[in-house]
């Protein structure tokens, strides 16, 4: 296994070194990423400074939703976010270079970069999570401990899968990154809020099409033993891994079809 992964380790390692070479610009990028995380949280804070309860969640619960969603999203952004560079790679022939190397193209795309500056936002999210957890009145059980440990991982997987889906679509759209960003970044934004504040169509979109609600809101309902809006069975909160698997299945099929379209069988 270790030997199988050696190429990727070396690739990612070289990306990391090249990013940290210019220390000052790296630090400023890092601080920028921290600032973005803080700004987004400030938005939630401002909302709850005006209302006590939103979508049946109080501030502590909403902060927990925000933190879980953001840990997942910022981790996915760090690991796979650069997949939206695909149009540039297509234009500059980088993808052809990938095709000439004896590794899977998607694995090369994912390891072609790792945006360490996005660690800033990961850190902000983790701090908010650490603060929000004790603020909530959770009756801890072994299952709930497992759920809170699992949720950031599944959230990362869901968002990473969404990034790959978005990248796959670029094979057809070429200049359509604005369109796909609506689903990746839009999904990330939606996941940071209690899904109950959205109208039904939006809620369905961000639950079953873009499974953003699984990344934080639904697990939080389970953690806090809250009923959620009508038509939201409790067990849905446990289904995040299924959502992640579903997103990745679509992502991998889409990627394969996209690559085939690029090399010409699909067109």
């Amino acid at each position, binding site marked *: 296994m270790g030997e199988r992964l050696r190429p990727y380790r*070396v690739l990612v390692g*070289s990306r990391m070194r090249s990013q940290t070479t210019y220390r000052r610009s790296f630090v400023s990028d890092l601080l920028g990423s921290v600032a973005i995380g803080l700004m987004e949280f400030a938005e939630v804070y401002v909302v709850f400074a005006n209302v006590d309860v939103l979508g049946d969640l109080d501030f502590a619960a909403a902060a927990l939703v925000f933190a879980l969603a953001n840990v997942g999203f910022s981790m996915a952004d760090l690991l796979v976010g650069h997949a939206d560079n695909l149009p540039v790679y297509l234009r500059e022939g980088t993808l052809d270079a990938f*095709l000439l190397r*004896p*590794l899977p193209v998607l694995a090369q795309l994912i390891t072609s970069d790792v945006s360490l500056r996005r660690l800033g936002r990961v850190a902000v999210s983790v701090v908010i999570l650490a603060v929000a957890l004790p603020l909530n009145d959770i009756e801890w059980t072994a299952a709930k401990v497992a759920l809170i440990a699992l949720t950031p991982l599944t959230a990362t997987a869901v968002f990473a899968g969404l990034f790959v889906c978005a990248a796959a679509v670029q094979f057809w759209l070429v200049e359509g990154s604005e369109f796909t960003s609506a689903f990746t970044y839009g999904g990330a934004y939606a996941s940071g809020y209690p899904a109950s504040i959205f109208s039904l169509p939006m809620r369905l979109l961000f639950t079953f099409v873009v499974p953003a609600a699984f990344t934080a809101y639904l697990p939080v309902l389970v953690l806090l033993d809250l009923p959620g809006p009508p038509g939201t069975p409790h067990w849905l909160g446990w289904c995040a891994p299924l959502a992640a698997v579903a997103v990745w299945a679509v992502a991998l099929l889409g990627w394969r079809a996209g690559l085939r379209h690029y*090399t010409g069988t699909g067109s």
Partner: protein
Amino acid sequence: MTEPIIQVRDLRREFVVRTPAGRLRRTRTVVAAVDGLSFDLAEGAAVGYIGANGAGKSTTIKMLTGILVPTAGTVRTCGLDPVRQRRELARQIGVVFGQRSQLWWDLPLAESFRALAAIHRLPEASWPVRRDELVDRLDLGEFLATPVRQLSLGQRIRGEIAAALLHSPRLLILDEPTIGLDVLSKERLRVFLAEQRALHGTTLLLTTHDMDDVQRLTDRVLVVDHGRLVYDGTLPGLTTQVGAERVMVVDLVEPVPDLGTVDGARRVAVESDGLRHRFAFTPERTTAGAILEAVGRRGQVRDLAIEEPDIEDVVRRLYLAQIRGDDPAAAP
């Protein structure tokens, strides 16, 4: 040795070109970039694949390497199906696109080589030996630690070629490797490639616009035009077939404004008030020696050079000859 390293049969690749027609409608035209190509390449051969811009050279290379799927026909490279066995093939071939970099822009070459060694899973004990050989032969030592984006074109191309050869491929495919290089860099590259071929028996497929590349590096020429193979043979055979003219440039010691006519040669130009004369000729009609002798009788020759016909010219003549052959009515 029995199986050809490249086997192409009735290869065809179409592209759909959409052009706007009116406000919303678009017309859809199918263009064949490669149109019924067949050829074999024996292991160890050195072949020049030439043709004008847009003749289908790069499209062919993309199909040989698994980047593009043929619309029809078959390709076997190193005995493999390039698209379905892409990763296996990638271990056996090295490809350089002169105008597109395969290196990492922000990494120094030393780091790129390390990454490529890992990608190809080269044994830790042996690949540095190969790297050192390439660094030495391509003279990369001075800029090994410089990020690729800061290298000059010549330095970068040398780096690209080293990168393509690091895993000791059986087949090296070079797409316009000398484009934009100065004379000295071109020369060094040619010497290196000839040496690698002699040393490792690497098969070489080269597309180029530079006749000198073809002459110096290859023993067989394939000419492609409008996606079809229009010539397959040696370079001298090609120039004979199309009657492409070589040009002899003669510099005289004393200016002679009018040298008169030379049998079998065509006077192209008189320059510098008669100090320099140009004669075009084909090998069937006269020889360089005969022209030199004729000129020598009328003036003292100080220096001479022979310019070979350029590829665009050869291909154009080949094309015209074909039109004439296939359809007499179209003859100019």
